[in-house]
């Protein structure tokens, strides 16, 4: 038993490790977290998948053996205790009991015996009487000895549950892997090219595999993830997905995930059609098919692509599909677009303090832009403008590595809720040919500038110069120039003058853009101020966007893929059987109290010796003993 308890303690500690250290993460994450040395050590110890490591399995097996031995050794003893009345107890041993009393016998032996037997019966005791050689008689009674089964039930239950668990584990694969027959596949290759050594046949007794089916496709293999690789599990039938649906509550949160499945099997006369959903799996040929998750199944996408640094406002169309690739630009500067994910609904909490209600902000797409050296930047862009602090923006995020947070470019919408206002403004701000005109307009409208042509010229030149600098890198470029050319004391004054001038220029530029498109012009008010401030910020931020291309999602044709989990667990019924036994065992161990009573009738002394015992002494027993003693006293005297 001590051995079993130590094993259980080790299991407990190992389990804690398994919960604290996130299991089954991609191995790169562990390397980043622990560094190469610790990563290797932990990998050797199997800490990334504690519950499937060899040592964990060995402990489980030891536990099964040791518990079985316990039951084997103590079981017969328990059954003996359960059956026996202990009717061979001697008077001497009864006298040594801590709970005993002696009463005088007032009636005859037989009457007393009858009374006592009735008493025992009323109290739910079973009894047996033995006549002693000296003419005395011992009534030995027992109640609640079923408690002894509690021991057998609980311990057998442990063994059965553990065996069931091992049955559903990956023991066969482990053995084959050790013998060198099987190995995991770590390369991302098409399923058909996965070698035989990494495939599990349909006769594999137990597995837990995953399958991703795009709508309108079918498959007859699933994937089992093992450590940093996978195995291909062949299925004895084909699963086809007709349709996948997500329903939403009015608040936008998902309400249900459903897949319309078709099972195609030569053994079947007609294919089985069934809709599965979370909590409602389909069971066929001992394999349960669960709705586990969903992802994109290759949604078709149409973009408008803006070259942020080109002084024109003509976007280029671009078409693609999730999991597909495309190209932007030409020659050495060409970038490959990898479309990674499309999400139709995004429930985000946009309130500034995080206390508001989350709501749906509409579709977004995640993609990567990879240069010819293989360096990639990840982007996420939302199709519809988002409301932030009461104003609406087109939002696109970028990050260099997966560990980084996305940094967002927020482009203010124009009066028609479109991005064109900003794009036109941007084009003019980048177009050096337009600067003299902007400068002229400012000079004309500005009251500070006198009529002296030389002064006007000088002013206009400085505006053009400022705009040229601003077009090279936004505010930060201006800041750099100031830092380089202006003495420290004057910097603040100069900076605020420049900012003011850029603002005024932006106003003119924005209006020029609007005029060129025959749109109503901006008027000078607070709303315009905010729009210009946001536009200038976006203009400055786009130099940090990582690439010149801004992809705006125009249209999509949604195609989803359902994530299915397929499991075969022959151990399940054993585990359930064990669980039932466990509950029975626990209840009988704790709520059935074994008590024994001996009543020794001694006709010679005209006395009755009453002794009571329990294998567990507690308050209830004390009380019961006292009650019985009083009742017996009343009965006999």
């Amino acid at each position, binding site marked *: 038993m001590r051995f079993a308890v130590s094993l259980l303690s080790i299991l407990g500690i190992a389990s*804690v490790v398994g919960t604290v250290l996130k299991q089954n993460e991609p191995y790169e994450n562990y390397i980043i977290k622990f560094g190469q040395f610790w990563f290797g050590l932990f990998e050797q110890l199997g800490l990334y998948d504690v519950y499937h490591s060899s040592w964990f399995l060995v402990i489980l097996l030891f536990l099964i053996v040791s518990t079985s031995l316990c039951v084997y050794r103590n079981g017969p003893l328990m059954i003996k205790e359960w059956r026996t009345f202990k009717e061979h107890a001697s008077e001497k041993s009864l006298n040594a009991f801590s709970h005993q009393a002696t009463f005088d016998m007032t009636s005859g032996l037989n009457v007393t015996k009858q009374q006592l037997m009735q008493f025992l019966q009323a*109290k739910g005791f079973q009894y047996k009487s033995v006549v002693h050689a000296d003419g005395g008689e011992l009534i030995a009674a027992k109640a609640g000895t079923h408690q002894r089964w509690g021991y057998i039930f609980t311990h057998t239950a442990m063994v059965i549950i553990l065996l069931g668990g091992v049955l559903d584990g990956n023991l066969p694969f482990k053995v084959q892997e050790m013998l060198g027959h099987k190995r995991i596949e770590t390369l991302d290759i098409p399923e058909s090219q996965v070698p035989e050594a990494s495939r599990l046949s349909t006769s594999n007794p137990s597995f837990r595999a995953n399958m991703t089916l795009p709508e309108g496709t079918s498959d007859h293999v699933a994937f089992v993830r093992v450590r940093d690789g996978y195995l291909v599990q062949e299925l004895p039938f084909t699963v086809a997905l007709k349709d996948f649906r997500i329903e939403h509550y009015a608040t936008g949160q998902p*309400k249900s995930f459903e897949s319309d499945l078709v099972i195609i099997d030569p053994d079947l006369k007609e294919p089985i059609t069934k809709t599965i959903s*979370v909590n409602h799996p389909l069971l066929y040929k001992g394999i349960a098919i669960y709705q*586990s998750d969903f992802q994109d199944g290759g949604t078709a996408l149409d973009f408008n692509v803006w070259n942020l640094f080109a002084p024109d406002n003509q976007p280029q169309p671009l078409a693609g599909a999730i999991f597909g690739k495309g190209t932007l630009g030409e020659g050495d500067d060409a970038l490959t677009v990898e479309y990674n994910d499309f999400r139709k609904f995004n429930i985000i909490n946009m309130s500034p303090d995080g206390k508001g209600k989350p709501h749906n902000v509409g579709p977004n797409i995640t993609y990567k832009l990879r240069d010819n050296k293989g360096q990639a930047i990840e982007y996420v862009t939302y199709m519809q403008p988002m409301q932030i602090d009461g104003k609406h923006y087109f939002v696109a995020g970028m990050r260099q590595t997966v560990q980084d947070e996305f940094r967002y470019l927020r482009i203010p919408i124009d009066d028609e809720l479109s991005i064109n206002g900003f794009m036109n403004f941007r084009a003019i701000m980048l177009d050096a040919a337009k600067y003299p005109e902007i400068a002229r307009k400012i000079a004309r409208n500005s009251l500070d500038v006198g009529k002296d042509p030389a002064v006007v010229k000088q002013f206009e030149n400085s505006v053009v110069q400022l705009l040229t600098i601003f077009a090279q890198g936004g505010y930060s470029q201006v800041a750099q120039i100031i830092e380089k050319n202006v003495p420290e004391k004057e910097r603040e004054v100069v900076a605020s003058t420049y900012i003011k001038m850029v603002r005024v220029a932006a106003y003119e530029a924005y209006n020029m853009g609007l005029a060129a498109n025959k749109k109503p012009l901006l008027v000078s008010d607070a709303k315009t101020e905010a729009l210009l401030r946001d536009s200038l910020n976006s203009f400055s931020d786009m130099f940090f966007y990582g690439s010149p291309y801004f992809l705006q999602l125009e249209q999509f044709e949604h195609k989803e893929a359902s994530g299915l989990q*397929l*499991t075969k667990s022959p151990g399940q019924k054993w585990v359930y059987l064990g669980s039932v036994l466990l*509950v029975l065992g626990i209840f009988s161990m704790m709520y059935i109290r074994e008590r024994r009573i001996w009543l020794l009738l001694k006709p010679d002394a005209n006395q009755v010796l009453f002794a009571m015992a329990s294998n*567990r002494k507690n*308050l209830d027993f004390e009380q019961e003993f006292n009650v019985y003693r009083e009742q017996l006293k009343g009965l006999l005297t």
Partner: protein
Amino acid sequence: MNSNSPDYQQKTLLQRLNWQDWLYALVLAAGAVFAYTRYAQYMDIYEVGFLFGATAVFSYLGWQWKRLSILVLGIGAVSVFSINLYQGEQARATQVFLLKYLISSQSAIMWMNVLFVLAMATYWFALYKRSEFTGKVATALTWSATLFGFVGLMVRWYESYLIAPDVGHIPISNLYEVFVLFCLITALLYLHYEQRLNTKQLGGFVLLVVNAAVGFILWYTFDRQAHNIQPLVPALQSYWMKIHVPANFVGYGAFSLAAMVASAYLLANKGVLASRLPELDVLDDLMYKSIAVGFAFFTIATILGAMWAAEAWGGYWSWDPKETWALIVWLNYAAWLHLRMVKGFRGPVLAWWALIGLIVTTFAFLGVNMFLSGLHSYGTL
């Protein structure tokens, strides 16, 4: 004395029942039949089973423990009254006087909080003054708190359907709701033992843990607006929730009760308050009984959880952090019971262990949600 029925004869449960008991069962059964005729089309076969099963269970519990039957009837009456005041409009929760200040789900839960705080103060005062009457007041306050708490949950159940029929669900689906449930179950378990073992002196101790939960509820309500009813995520839309969660909270509640009794035991053992607290034997016995109840229910809850997982997550055991910690809690108390029952261990060591067990239990209940991620992420803070 009749020789056919000597005075030691014990009556069976059915023989002990009087007409009030039968009336009580009849009222429950009538309620269940009413619910069935009205809502059968929204229930699956299991839920119909639970409905009538609950009738049987609560009849039995009420027969065994009369005060509980009064509570059950009280909850039913007040809840029905409150629901009628709504007249099918959620907005009336803040318009009708009685609802706004007393028995809308939110107000009732607030009253529960207030009454639990008062009850604790009164219990301590009774302990300090050795006043039996004050103790009775404290007991009454605790009973009222559970009445309000259950009414709050019942009305919340109804309110959730007012938001939208597809949003409606039993209010044991997130951390806020189960905290209320925890307070109620712990209080009820305590009241049961208080009556059986006459241990009013322990009320202050037990209500410490209940009021810790009350504090959490208040923080969660005012800081996070957690009292707002949220629709169920797909994984929780199952009849299993209706049995798995309550079973689990009987476990948590009983373990917490045991830990609080253990703290009283340790104090009394050191001579602190020893003259005011019950005998060490009684404390020890109470601690054992409550851990035994907790362990039995926790076992059942874990098994039910495994069965649910086999339907929802693709396997009865996934080594999800919550599952794993449930196993650790289970092993912990299994060891405790083993030592006491098989080895006959007693005394302060077990009391310390029960107290530390509360830390393990709390981590399994709360810590896992706060620090670890996994499949059980419904209750995240």
